[in-house]
C-alpha cells in the first residue's frame, strides 16, 4: 500500500510537466495540488493502525546480493513527517500556481515537476527502512534542492547559492554513505529497525566513532547546523514556495529525522549526546545572533529556522522521554508557523518586489488576510498561549529541567527563544503593521491561491492547540513512541495548572523577547556594524577553502599539463623504472648468476659490438642522415642475430624492412632540413643518459637472471616436432606465423592495413595531387627509367616465388609483399608516382582491404568444417604427375602479401606526393 503511494507520487510528478502546460496559468496549481492532497488523505487512512502503535511495512527484493531491499516502513514518526510532507506540499503547490504567474509556461512546468519530485523524494526518505534506500532519497532531496535554489539561474546569486548548498549537503551525503557502509559491516544489515533494536551492539562496534561522525556530518549539513549552517540563509535565493517547503518545513528536518532514528546509538556511544548538544548550542547562538543582524525578510526567517533546527538537535541530544515529546511537538509546531511566515514573506515579495525588511511597512492595507495569518503564526512562534508554539515550548523547558544536563543548555535556550520571540514580532509588525505609508502601491494583490496556505496553516496552529485530543492520539503519541521506543503518556501543559517552573521560564523568555523587540532598531544597527563575525564565520572559511582549492587545482593542472613531450616521456620511463625497482625491493632477490659462463664466441660478440656502436652513434648523431644510418646499423645487427640463431626468415624480413625504411625515410628527409641542432641542455642530457644507463643496467641484470633458468622449451619443441607432421610445412617460422600463431599474424596484418589508411589520410593530397605528380615526373632519370621495368618484373616474379615457397623454405607473404613493393618503389623513383600507380591499377588501400578480407576469409572454411577458426585445410593435387600439397595457408599468406604491398605503397605514394608538394 505505501509503495503504491510512493509510486503514485512519482507518477504524479512525472505527469506534472505535461499537465501544467495543459491547464495553463490559473488552474495548474490547484489541479496539481491534488497529487499531494490525495496522498495526504490516503495517509490519513493509516490513522487507526498508527494510533494503535503498529507500523505498516512493505518489502520488495531489489538487490539481495548487496543486502539492499526496498523496505518501506511507516511508523508513528514517519507518519508525522508523511503528513507534513503531503499536507504542506499540497498548500505549496497551490501557492506556487499564483506565485509563479509571471514565469513562462516551461519554467512553471519545471517548477511543478521539481517540487513534486522533491515531495516524492522526501516521502521516500522518511518511509525507507533500508539505509541505502534512505540514502538514495536523501541524495535526491539534495539535488532537487540544488535545482530549486538555482531556479532563477539567470543571475549569479542563485547559482552561487545553489552550488554552495549542493556542495555542503552532498558532502554530508558522502559522509552518510560511509557511515551506512560501516553500519552494514558492523551489523550485517542496513535496516533502520536493526540499528534501533541493536543500538547497544552497534555502539560496541570498532567502527562506532566513524559511524557517528558520518551520521553527524550528514545530519548537520542537511539540517544546517554549525559549522555547516551557512548554506541555508543563502538558499533563500530559491523561489519562496520552495523555501517554505524545503528550507523550513521538510528537507532541513531530514537531518533531525536521521538523528532521531540514530538516537539510541548516539545515546549508547560515549560522549555522543554531549557532542550533539555542543554543536546544537553553538548553532543556536550563532543563528540567533545572525537573525538579529539580518536585513532581508527571508534571511531573518532563515536564521530563525537555523536556530530552531539547533533547538531540535539539542532536544535529540537531551535524554529522557520528555525531550522526545518536545522534539516531536516542536517539529510540528515549527512546520506550521514557519511555513506560514514563509508564505507571507513570499506574498510580500510577490506583491512589492521588495526583500529588505527596512523598506517595508503598512502592508496590512494591501494584504489584510496575509497580515492576520502572519500575526497568528508569529504568536505561535513566540510561544504564547493558546497556540501550538506555547505547548511545544513548555515541553522544551520541561525536557531541560528533567534531563541530566546542567544549566548551560537551559540558559542558551532561554536566550535563543527570546530572540525568536523578537524575530516573530519583527517579521509581523515591521512589514504589515508599522511604518504606514512606506509602501504606496503593490504589483499583485492577494488571491485565493496565495491565501490558502498561510490561512490554513496558521489556523491549524491555533486549532490543534485548542482541540489537541485527535492529533495527540493519532500522530504525536505514536511518533514519540516510535522514537523513544516506548509509549510515553502525554500530559499537555495548560494555564490551568498555575504557575509552574516551565511557565515561569516561558514568561521570562517572552519578557526578554519583548525587550529585544522594543529595541530592535538600535540592536540591529549596532550588530550590523560589527563585521568581525563575518570574517570568522564558517561561510568565510568555506569560501577561502574553495579559493585555495581552486588555486591548488590550477597548480596541479599546470604541473601535469605542461605539454612538453620529452618531459612526459622522461617521467613515463622513469616511472617504469621506479615500478621495477619497487618490484625488486618487494621481491628482495638479487640476480641469479649462471654456474658456468658459456664459452666465448667471437662472431656474436663482434655483431653485438657493432650494434652497441650503432646505438651510441645514433645518440651522438647531429644530423638526421647520420641518425638514420646509425639506427639502420642496429637494425642490421638484429637481422644478423636472427640469422645466427637459426631464424633466417626473420633475418630476411628484417633486412627487407630495413631497406624499405631507408627508402621511405629518404623520401621524408627530402623535405626536412638536414641539420637538427640539439635542443637539450647539458643537464637534460645528463638526466637522459643516466635514465638510459639505469634502465639498461636493470634489463641486463634481469636477462642474466633469466638466462639461468633451465630452458623451458615445451612450446618450441612442440612447434619443431609438429611443423611438418601436422602442419605440413618445413619452415617452422612460417608455420608458426601462418598456422600455430596465425591469429597473431592476422592481428598484425590488420595493424598494417590500418596504418595504410593512416598514411594515406595523413600524407594524402590536401587539395589535389595533380601539381605534385607533375613535379615528380619532371625528375625522371633516363637510365633508371630504362632499367626499372626489368627490375620491376624481376622483383614481382621473385615476390610471387617467395610467397609460394614460403611454407617449406625461407619466404612467406610478408617478405613477398615487401619485395613486390620494392619493385613499385623503383618504378616510382624512376618514372614517377603516377606511372607506378597506373601499373598497379588498383588503389593501394583497396589492395590492403582485399588482402585483409582474404586473410580473414581463409580462416572460415576451417571453422565451418572443423569448428576451428584458421584451421588450415589441405588438398593434394597432381600437377603433371608431381603431387603438390596446397592448403588454405596460401590464401592467408596471399592476404598478408597484398596487405603489406598495399600499405607500403600507400606510404610510398603518400610520401612522394608529400615530397613533391
Amino acid at each position, binding site marked *: 500500500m505505501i509503495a503504491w503511494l510512493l509510486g503514485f507520487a512519482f507518477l504524479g510528478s512525472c505527469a506534472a510537466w505535461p499537465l501544467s502546460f495543459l491547464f495553463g496559468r490559473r488552474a495548474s496549481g490547484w489541479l496539481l495540488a491534488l497529487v499531494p492532497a490525495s496522498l495526504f488523505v490516503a495517509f490519513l487512512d493509516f490513522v487507526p493502525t498508527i494510533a494503535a502503535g503498529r507500523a505498516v511495512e512493505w518489502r520488495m527484493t531489489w538487490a539481495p546480493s548487496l543486502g539492499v531491499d526496498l523496505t518501506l516502513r511507516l511508523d508513528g514518526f514517519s507518519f508525522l513527517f508523511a503528513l507534513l510532507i503531503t499536507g504542506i506540499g499540497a498548500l505549496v503547490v497551490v501557492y506556487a500556481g499564483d506565485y509563479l504567474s509571471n514565469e513562462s509556461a516551461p519554467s512553471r512546468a519545471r517548477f511543478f515537476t521539481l517540487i513534486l519530485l522533491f515531495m516524492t523524494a522526501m516521502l521516500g526518505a522518511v518511509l525507507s527502512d533500508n539505509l541505502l534506500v534512505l540514502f538514495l532519497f536523501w541524495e535526491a532531496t539534495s539535488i532537487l534542492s540544488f535545482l530549486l535554489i538555482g531556479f532563477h539561474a539567470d543571475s549569479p546569486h542563485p*547559482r552561487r547559492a545553489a552550488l554552495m548548498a549542493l556542495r555542503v549537503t552532498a558532502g554530508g551525503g558522502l559522509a552518510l554513505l560511509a557511515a551506512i557502509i560501516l553500519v552494514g559491516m558492523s551489523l550485517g544489515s542496513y535496516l533502520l529497525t536493526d540499528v534501533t533494536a541493536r543500538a547497544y551492539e552497534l555502539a560496541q562496534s570498532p567502527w562506532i566513532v566513524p559511524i557517528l561522525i558520518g551520521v553527524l556530518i550528514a545530519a548537520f549539513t542537511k539540517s544546517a547546523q554549525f559549522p555547516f549552517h551557512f548554506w541555508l540563509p543563502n538558499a533563500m535565493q530559491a523561489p519562496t514556495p520552495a523555501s517554505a517547503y524545503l528550507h523550513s518545513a521538510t528537507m532541513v528536518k531530514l537531518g533531525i529525522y536521521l538523528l532521531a532514528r540514530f538516537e539510541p546509538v548516539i545515546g549508547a556511544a560515549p560522549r555522543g549526546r554531549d557532542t550533539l548538544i555542543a554543536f546544537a548550542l553553538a548553532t543556536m547562538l550563532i543563528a540567533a545572533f545572525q537573525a538579529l543582524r539580518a536585513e532581508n525578510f527571508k534571511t531573518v526567517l532563515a536564521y530563525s529556522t537555523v536556530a530552531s533546527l539547533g533547538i531540535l538537535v539539542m532536544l535529540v541530544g537531551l535524554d529522557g522521554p520528555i525531550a522526545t515529546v518536545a522534539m516531536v511537538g516542536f517539529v510540528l509546531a515549527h512546520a506550521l508557523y514557519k511555513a506560514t511566515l514563509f508564505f507571507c514573506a513570499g506574498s510580500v515579495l510577490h506583491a512589492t518586489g521588495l526583500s529588505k525588511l527596512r523598506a517595508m511597512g503598512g502592508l496590512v492595507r494591501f494584504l489584510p488576510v496575509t497580515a492576520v495569518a502572519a500575526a497568528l503564526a508569529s504568536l505561535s512562534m513566540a510561544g504564547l498561549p493558546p497556540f501550538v508554539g506555547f505547548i511545544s515550548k513548555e515541553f522544551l523547558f520541561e525536557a531541560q529541567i528533567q534531563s541530566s544536563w546542567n544549566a548551560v543548555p537551559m540558559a542558551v535556550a532561554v536566550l535563543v527563544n527570546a530572540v525568536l520571540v523578537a524575530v516573530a514580532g519583527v517579521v509581523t509588525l515591521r512589514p504589515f503593521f508599522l511604518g504606514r505609508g512606506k509602501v504606496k502601491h503593490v504589483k499583485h494583490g492577494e488571491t485565493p491561491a496565495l491565501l490558502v496556505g498561510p490561512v490554513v496553516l496558521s489556523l491549524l496552529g491555533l486549532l490543534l492547540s485548542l482541540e489537541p485530543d485527535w492529533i495527540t492520539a493519532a500522530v504525536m503519541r505514536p511518533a514519540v513512541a516510535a522514537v523513544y521506543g516506548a509509549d510515553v503518556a502525554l500530559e499537555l501543559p495548560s494555564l490551568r495548572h498555575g504557575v509552574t517552573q516551565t511557565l515561569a521560564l516561558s514568561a521570562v523568555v517572552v519578557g526578554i523577547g519583548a525587550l529585544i523587540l522594543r529595541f530592535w532598531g538600535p540592536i540591529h544597527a549596532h550588530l550590523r556594524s560589527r563585521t568581525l563575525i563575518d570574517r570568522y564565520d564558517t561561510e568565510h572559511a568555506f569560501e577561502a577553502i574553495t579559493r585555495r582549492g*581552486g588555486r591548488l587545482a590550477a597548480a596541479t593542472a599546470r604541473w601535469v599539463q605542461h605539454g612538453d613531450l620529452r618531459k612526459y616521456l622522461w617521467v613515463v620511463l622513469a616511472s617504469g623504472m621506479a615500478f621495477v625497482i619497487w618490484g625488486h625491493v618487494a*621481491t628482495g632477490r638479487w640476480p641469479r648468476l649462471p654456474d658456468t659462463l658459456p664459452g666465448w664466441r667471437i662472431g656474436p660478440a663482434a655483431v653485438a659490438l657493432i650494434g652497441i656502436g650503432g646505438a651510441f652513434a645514433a645518440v651522438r648523431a647531429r644530423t638526421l642522415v647520420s641518425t638514420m644510418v646509425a639506427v639502420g646499423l642496429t637494425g642490421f645487427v638484429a637481422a644478423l642475430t636472427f640469422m645466427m640463431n637459426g631464424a633466417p626468415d626473420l633475418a630476411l624480413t628484417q633486412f627487407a624492412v630495413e631497406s624499405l625504411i631507408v627508402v621511405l625515410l629518404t623520401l621524408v628527409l627530402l623535405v626536412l632540413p638536414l641539420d637538427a641542432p640539439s635542443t637539450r641542455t647539458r643537464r637534460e642530457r645528463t638526466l637522459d643518459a643516466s635514465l638510459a644507463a639505469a634502465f639498461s643496467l636493470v634489463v641486463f641484470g634481469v636477462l642474466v637472471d633469466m638466462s639461468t633458468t633451465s630452458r623451458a622449451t615445451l612450446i618450441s619443441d612442440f612447434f619443431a616436432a609438429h611443423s611438418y607432421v601436422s602442419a605440413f610445412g618445413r619452415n617452422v617460422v612460417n608455420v608458426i606465423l601462418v598456422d600455430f600463431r596465425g591469429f597473431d599474424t592476422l592481428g598484425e596484418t590488420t595493424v598494417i592495413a590500418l596504418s595504410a589508411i593512416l598514411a594515406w589520410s595523413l600524407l594524402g593530397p590536401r587539395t589535389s595531387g595533380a601539381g605534385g605528380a607533375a613535379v615528380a615526373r619532371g625528375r625522371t632519370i633516363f637510365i633508371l627509367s630504362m632499367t626499372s621495368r626489368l627490375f620491376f618484373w624481376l622483383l614481382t616474379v621473385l615476390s610471387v616465388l617467395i610467397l609460394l615457397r614460403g611454407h617449406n623454405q625461407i619466404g612467406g607473404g610478408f617478405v613477398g609483399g615487401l619485395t613486390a613493393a620494392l619493385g613499385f618503389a623503383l618504378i616510382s623513383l624512376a618514372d614517377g608516382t603516377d606511372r607506378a600507380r597506373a601499373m598497379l591499377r588498383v588503389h593501394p588501400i*583497396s589492395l590492403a582491404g582485399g588482402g585483409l578480407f582474404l586473410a580473414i576469409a581463409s580462416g572460415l572454411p576451417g571453422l565451418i568444417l572443423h569448428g576451428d577458426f584458421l584451421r588450415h585445410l589441405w588438398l593434394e593435387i597432381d600437377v603433371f604427375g608431381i603431387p603438390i600439397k596446397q592448403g588454405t595457408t596460401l590464401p592467408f599468406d596471399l592476404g598478408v602479401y597484398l596487405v603489406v604491398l598495399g600499405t607500403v605503397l600507400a606510404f610510398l605514394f603518400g610520401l612522394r606526393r608529400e615530397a613533391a608538394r
Partner: protein
Amino acid sequence: MIADAIARGAAVWPVAIPLIGAALTLLVRRSPRIQRGVMEGGVMLMLGASVSLLVRVARDDVAVMAFGGWGAPFGITFVADRLGAALSLVTGIVALAVAIYARADIRARRRKAGFDPLFLGMLAAVNGAFLTGDLFNLYVWFELMLVAAVGLVSLDRRPAQIDGAIRYAAMSMVGASFILIGIGLLYGETGTLDIAHLGVTLVGKEPTLTLGTSAFMLLAGFALKAGLFPLFFWLPASYHTAPISVTAALAGLLTKVGFYACLRVLVVVFGVGGKEVVPGIPPLAALLAAATMIVSVLAALAQVDIRRLLAFHIVGQVAYLMMGLALASSVGIASAIVYMMHTMLVQTGLFLGAGAIARAHGSYDLRQAPGLVRDRPLFTALFAVMALSLSGVPPLSGFWAKFVVIDAAFRADAAWLAVVALIVGFLTLYSMSTLWSDSFWGTTSRQTRVIRTIPPAMMYAMILLGACTIGIGLAIDVVFTFATDAASQLTHPMSVGMTR
C-alpha cells in the same frame, strides 16, 4: 553446418565481424554511404554476437576457440569467460551508441579519411583483448588499438590533432615496450604464453628477479594504457583534439582495456587476490589509485574545456577500478568489474553529451555555453543522468559502482583508500556541479548567439546510454551477482583450465 559453425565460433565472432567489416569498408572507400552502412551493419552484428556469446558463457561458464585447432598452450586460444563476454557486450553497446551518434557527427569527409575501417579495427582490437587467452595475442590487440586510435585522433589532419596523435603514439609505444619486455621475460622464464597456463605454471613458484621485473613491467605498461598517474599524460594531451565521436569511443573503451589487462594478468598469472607469486603489487596499485584519483580530480577542476575536464575524469574513474584491484580480494575484484561496466557506458555518454553541447553552442568552452536548461530540456535531463551517474548518485549505475568499491575497501581494511575515494567522489560531484552551473544555467546574454538544435541521432545515442546506466542501477543485483561470479572465475583459473 553453417549454423553449427556460427555457434562453434561464438568466441571469435565479436572480433571477426568487425575485422571483416574493416576489410569491406576499405574496399568500398569511395562511397561514404555504403561505408557507413557496412560499419553500422558490422556494429550491429558484433553486438548480436556479443549477446549470444554472453548467453552461452552464462550457460557453459566459458566459450573457447583454439585457432587453427592448436589447443593451449601451443596455439592461441580465445577464452571467453564471464568477464570477457560481459565486457565485450558493453563494448558492443558503446559501439552502437557511437555509431548512431556518428550519423550526426561524422560526415563524408571524415568517412573518406577512414573513420569506418579505423573504428571497426579498434572495436575488433578491444574485443580481441577482452576475449583472448594468450598473452602475446593480447599485445597484438594493443598494437591494433594504438594504430586505430592514432588514425582516429588525427582524422581531420588538423595540426593540433597530429600533435595530439604524436604524443599519444610516442607515450603509448613506451608502454607497449614495457609490456613487450614483460612478456618476453615471462616467456623466457616459463616457456609459455597462454595466460591460464602461465597461472598454473607459476603457482607456488619462488619469486625470482625475472618474474618480479616481468610483473612490474607489465603493470607499468598496462597502467600506462589504463591512464594511471604518473603515466597518464598521453590521455589529456590527445583526447580533446579528436572528433568528439572518436573521443567518446576512446574514452569508453581504451583505458578500460588497459585496466582489464592489468586485472587479467595480475590476477590470473601473478595471483593477486589469491596466492601471490610476486609480492608488492597491491600496495603499489593502491598508491597509484590514490595518487591518480587526487591528481586527476584536481586537474579536472581547473579545466574550462569540457573535453579536457572529462578527460581528467576518465583518468580518475580508472583509478577507482585500480582501487578495486589493489584490494586484492575477490570482492574488490568484483567491485572493479561492476565499476568497469558502468564507467565504459557513462564516460562515452558524457563525451557524446559534450559534443551535443558544443553542437548547440558552437564551443567546448564552459564559459561560453550557458542556458541549456531553458532551451533543451530533454537533452538537459539526459546529460543530467550521465553527470549524476559519474558523480555516484543513486540509483544510477555510478552509485552502485562507487558503493561496492568503497564497501570492498572498508572490508579489506583499506579504510584510508575508501576515505580518499569518498573525498574524490565529492570533488567529482563538485566538478560536475560547476559544469552544470556553467553550461546549463545562465542565459545567453548576447542576442546574436543562437542555440542550435541537437540532431536526433545524438539524442538517440544518449538515450541508449542513459537507459543503460539507469538499467544497471535498477538491475544491480543481476550485474553484481554476475560480477561476483566473474571474479571467482578469474581468481580460480583452474576451473577454466580444466574445461579446455
